[in-house]
């Protein structure tokens, strides 16, 4: 006869209510892990999208994501001619705040030359940019429909395609423009500023500036060899794809990662304390029953089993409900919540370990209960 199961069944409502409370707590833990995973994956999505071997940036900088990097627009042609480079693409990055359907919208704008490196990794719907001006591909997270017009700067752009999971390190959806459009958006002065500069005899403004040049190498060519070649130009620096990803994770998302990690750790400790308190209270409620069981001859393993099985059942049901809940609401979070099966499995195992450790308080109490406590009023 399984006493733990019988006790749970007898007080099913109370048990389930406790499990729901625990589920909410574990759901928060799981969503924090998912947010962290989403943060890193989102951050890497932008750097992984072009699928290149080498990032050519302004000398002395660590690339367009960690700090400002500006180079002349003809850098692409220079890089493309370096031995071992199969193809190259010039790219700009900038953050733009605009309005769409009367709502504020923050976008990470990526400018690239259609047909060259730097475009989206894939499209969820629609097509890629085909014209040099007036078209945009935007991520689904922006909430803009295919065929809509999007105001950026002084121009309207037709949404011709939509991507999925293309967001910046800050979680802003990415909008892909042609390089020319993006350069104008970023570097062209306002008409009033332009007229004032002309009146004081300043040279005409140039917008042919890029933030990085991406290079894909020929098979068998080592990035180090191309890096040495490009390093001969003193105004350029390079980072391999792996280095660029490391820079992004370490420089850009490291603090957020540590913050979320710390918060997740604190939540795990809180969960352990809550589970321990629940088990302890459940044991306190059963002092007379445990004393009676001891008096009528139940061995310690029966008493320990009663407490431990209830703790594990509570942990498993709480975790199951929590995981189901987070899966249901993950898409409603403002930031992407990436739930990986291995993370869920690890948390599940951790919860079981926490349950066993937390129940030790209750087990200690139960083992100290004297059988004589069953006698008398």
């Amino acid at each position, binding site marked *: *006869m399984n*006493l733990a199961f*019988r*006790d749970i*069944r*007898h*007080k099913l409502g109370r048990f389930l209510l406790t499990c729901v409370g625990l589920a909410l707590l574990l759901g928060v833990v799981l969503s924090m892990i998912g947010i962290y995973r989403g943060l890193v994956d989102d951050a890497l999505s932008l750097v992984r999208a072009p699928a290149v071997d080498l990032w050519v940036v302004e000398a002395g900088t660590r690339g367009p994501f960690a700090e400002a990097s500006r180079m002349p627009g003809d850098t692409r042609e220079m890089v493309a001619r370096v031995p071992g480079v199969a193809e190259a693409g010039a790219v700009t990055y900038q953050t733009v705040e605009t309005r769409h359907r009367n709502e504020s919208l923050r976008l990470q704008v990526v400018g690239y030359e259609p047909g060259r490196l730097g475009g989206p990794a894939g499209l969820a719907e629609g097509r890629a940019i085909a014209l040099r001006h007036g078209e945009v591909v935007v991520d689904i997270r922006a909430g803009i429909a295919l065929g809509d017009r999007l105001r950026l700067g002084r121009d309207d752009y037709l949404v011709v395609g939509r991507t999925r999971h293309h967001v910046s390190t800050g979680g802003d959806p990415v909008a892909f423009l042609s390089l020319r459009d993006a350069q104008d958006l970023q570097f062209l002065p306002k008409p009033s500023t332009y007229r004032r500069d002309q009146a004081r005899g300043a040279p005409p403004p140039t917008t042919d500036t890029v933030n990085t040049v991406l290079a894909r190498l020929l098979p068998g060519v080592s990035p180090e060899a191309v890096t040495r070649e490009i390093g001969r130009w003193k105004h350029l620096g390079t980072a391999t794809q792996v280095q660029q990803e490391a820079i992004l994770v370490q420089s850009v998302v490291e603090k957020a990662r540590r913050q979320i990690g710390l918060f997740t750790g604190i939540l795990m400790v809180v969960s352990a304390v809550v589970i321990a308190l629940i088990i302890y209270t459940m044991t306190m409620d059963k002092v*007379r*029953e445990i004393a*009676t*069981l*001891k*008096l*009528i*001859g*139940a*061995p310690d393993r*029966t008493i320990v089993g009663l407490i431990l099985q209830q703790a594990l059942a509570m942990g498993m049901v709480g975790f199951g409900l929590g995981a189901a809940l987070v899966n249901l609401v993950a898409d409603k979070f403002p930031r992407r919540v990436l739930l990986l099966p291995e993370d869920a499995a690890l948390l599940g195992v951790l919860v079981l370990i926490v349950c066993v450790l937390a129940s030790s308080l209750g087990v200690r109490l139960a083992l100290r209960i*004297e*059988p*004589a406590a*069953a*006698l*008398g*009023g």
Partner: protein
Amino acid sequence: MEANSPLADLRGIAKHFGEGESRVDALRGLDLALYPGEVVGLLGPSGSGKSTLLNIIGCIIAPSTGHMTLDGKVVFDGGWTGGDLRKLRLDKIGFIFQFHNLLPFLNSRDNVAVVLELAGQGRAAARARADELLSYLEVDNRANAFPAHLSGGEAQRVAIARALANHPRLILADEPTAALDSQRAAIVLDLLRKVAREQSAAVLVVTHDEKIFDRFDRILRVRDGVLEG
């Protein structure tokens, strides 16, 4: 064991709590024998030592000194000699409590069967024996009821069924009628008498309940840790 030899035999049992100035002598060199088939009442004012005596006979607490045999086996002789005390209680002693102490999450049948399963019986055999006992105590119609839905008398009869489950030689009852009216108290005592006779068990009842005094074969009185009379 001979027919007239005691089921429980206590010699020179003493028990004190604390040491030095805080020492309390709960029992002082007490001798007691309980025989098969008899129902013995144990009376005494609060603090007289009757609960301590019940705990000692029930192998729950150890005496400070003395010698004790249960069902012909020496279980205490300056220290416990009977091995696993819980097993000893499970096999030899049945307990009946003032407030029945049924497990609230088990129905009547399972409250009886749990003792049998703890003793190693299979589920089906345990349930069959539980049904047999509930029938014997005339509460078989409440086999599926949980303790919260039983009357005081029904709950106490289920508790008696549980105490009898493993054919104990000794039944210890702590104020078993305190929560019952006089009619139900008499029924419970008559049941215990019936069990004692039919199963050759000894029954020791700690009580203050004067309305059942006439149903005991013997009445023992404890005062200041010694048996009177």
